[in-house]
């Protein structure tokens, strides 16, 4: 009986391999081989001068040191500044909205309407959104026009010609695109908190502020960290919005040039050596962030099922409640 069962499970094992084969084959071809090729290129001087190829010549770590001494730190800083300018209002507003939406004592009219509206920008094509902002915030565009007519400003504001203005526009777009998504994620986390904790706190006479800072925040800390890390990864990939808004120039004076825009420039120019070493830098940073996400997803919850089940339950509850 026992041996028969063993034979049976062995005979099914091959189906496991067959079913996961397409995924791993595709990943090997389109991600692992390219990664190896990218790393290999990073050690070579290899670019095109006109139609003439220079290289490939082995240069060791020269590309890496050249990047560090050139513009890489500046572009990393730009990326970070624009990310944090968008992320701080995003997480603050999302926390406030999520706690309002989940507060049973607070009667909000049209809750579903607001949820639908704040999530909307997340689905908009970032490049079209950036093009729209470019048109709206141009010197003779509608925003200046409206502000002038309302008498708020005396003359047209040149939004995209100052560092602060251009960076703020990028951050504003990132904020608009992501605060709704974060709100909805945080709502699910808050609804996963055992309601009896809140009830006990209310009986003890806790104020709203105490409930928020002493119960809600500590309880959803894991999801907050998760949001922070995934948002960092998203920020690292920031490209569409500043690329289209500034026409790939990162203007003014390359203060809105992000890391991926820099990579894009090297790729367009077919500078394989520099693109390679820049990619490896990005790979290392992403690898660290991936490791953090991995640990959070697998920690004390080996396959993520509890986390998912909790969220599914919260979502179901919300669906019923609205």
């Amino acid at each position, binding site marked *: 009986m026992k041996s028969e069962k063993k034979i049976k499970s062995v005979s099914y094992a091959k189906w496991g391999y067959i079913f996961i084969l397409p995924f791993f084959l595709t990943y090997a071809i389109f991600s692992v081989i*390219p990664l190896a090729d990218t790393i290999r290129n990073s050690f070579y001087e290899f670019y095109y001068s006109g139609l003439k190829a220079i290289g490939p010549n082995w240069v060791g770590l020269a590309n890496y040191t050249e990047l560090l001494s050139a513009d890489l730190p500046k572009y990393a800083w730009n990326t970070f500044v624009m990310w944090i300018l968008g992320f701080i209002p995003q997480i603050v507003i999302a926390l406030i909205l999520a706690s309002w939406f989940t507060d049973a004592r607070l009667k909000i009219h049209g809750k579903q309407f607001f949820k639908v509206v704040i999530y909307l920008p997340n689905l908009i094509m970032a490049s079209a*959104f950036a093009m*729209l902002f470019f*048109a709206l915030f141009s010197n003779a565009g509608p925003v200046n026009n409206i502000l002038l007519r309302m008498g708020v400003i005396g003359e047209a504001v040149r939004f995209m010609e100052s560092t602060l203005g251009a960076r703020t526009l990028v951050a504003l777009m990132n904020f608009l695109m992501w605060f709704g998504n974060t709100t909805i994620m945080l709502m699910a986390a808050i609804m996963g908190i055992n309601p009896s904790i809140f009830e006990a706190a209310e009986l003890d006479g806790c104020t709203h502020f105490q409930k928020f800072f002493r119960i809600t925040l500590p309880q959803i800390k894991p999801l907050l960290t998760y949001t922070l890390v995934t948002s960092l990864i998203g920020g690292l990939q920031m490209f569409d919005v500043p690329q289209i808004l500034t026409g790939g120039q990162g203007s003014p004076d390359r203060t809105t040039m992000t890391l991926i825009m820099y990579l894009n420039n090297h790729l367009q120019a077919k500078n394989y050596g520099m693109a390679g070493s820049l990619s490896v830098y990005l790979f290392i940073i992403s690898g660290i962030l991936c490791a953090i996400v991995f640990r959070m997803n697998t920690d004390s919850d080996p396959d993520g099922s509890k986390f998912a089940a909790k969220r599914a339950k919260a979502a179901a509850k919300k669906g019923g409640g609205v």
Partner: protein
Amino acid sequence: MENKRSHGREILAHVVLIILAFMCLFFFYILIINATRSHAQLQLGFSALPGSSLVTNFKNVINDPAIPILRGVLNSLIVSGCCAAIVTYFSALTAYGIYAYDFRLKKAAFTFIMAILVMPTQVTALGFLRLITNMGMDDSLLPLIIPSIASPAVFYFMHSYMQSSLPKDLIEAARIDGSMEFSTFNRIVLPIMKPAIAVQAIFTFVGSWNNYFIPALVITSKNKQTLPIMIATLRGADYMNFDMGKIYMMITIAIVPIIIIYLLLSKFIVEGVTLGGVKE
């Protein structure tokens, strides 16, 4: 006292929500209004009321040979549709392989996918471009579709969903009834996975529709461009000589289909966000 204070909070909450909703909608409102106005009207300044050039602008846009926008819509539909179908099917297949079977590398396979869950595709873009050029797939829609067979985040979603909604007894029962492994997946598992597949198909479709970085590097010929690439070429156009009504109309064509899909399925989508564990 208590009553009064919560009244104050209620007013504050509504004011803040109205301001945020206004911010989210206002830009799209200007977009739609401006898409209905002619270049000359737009030069006169902003007006809150729609103009009468909606049809003219639309005709101008679709008849512009420099930017074949209808071709772009078609290309984007092909890529996004194929991606949505392939991503959901193969992610469910992979998740089922790991969920339903016991094999030696099961744990290693799961760990590997979890490790690459949020790895950005941009870091391998250089090697990817060189690879598809060597394979003769550059300037084609295929490299925008095929790699999506391996989508770790969707796999994770499907796997979590199976753990909460696909009892293993059911698979066993199908076996006893003589169902082959592959048809068990297609005929029994896929129908059970429908809600998860629908959510992920929408998110994948939208993500693919909006994707700009890789397509812009892969596609070189005009009649293979997807919508985001065409939108980007607008930015490079000579601004002084360009019909602004046309620009607003093109942006409208790029984003309004998604807004319509969203409004039709909004409740479902907003709930899907939290079902989804990880979203890009």
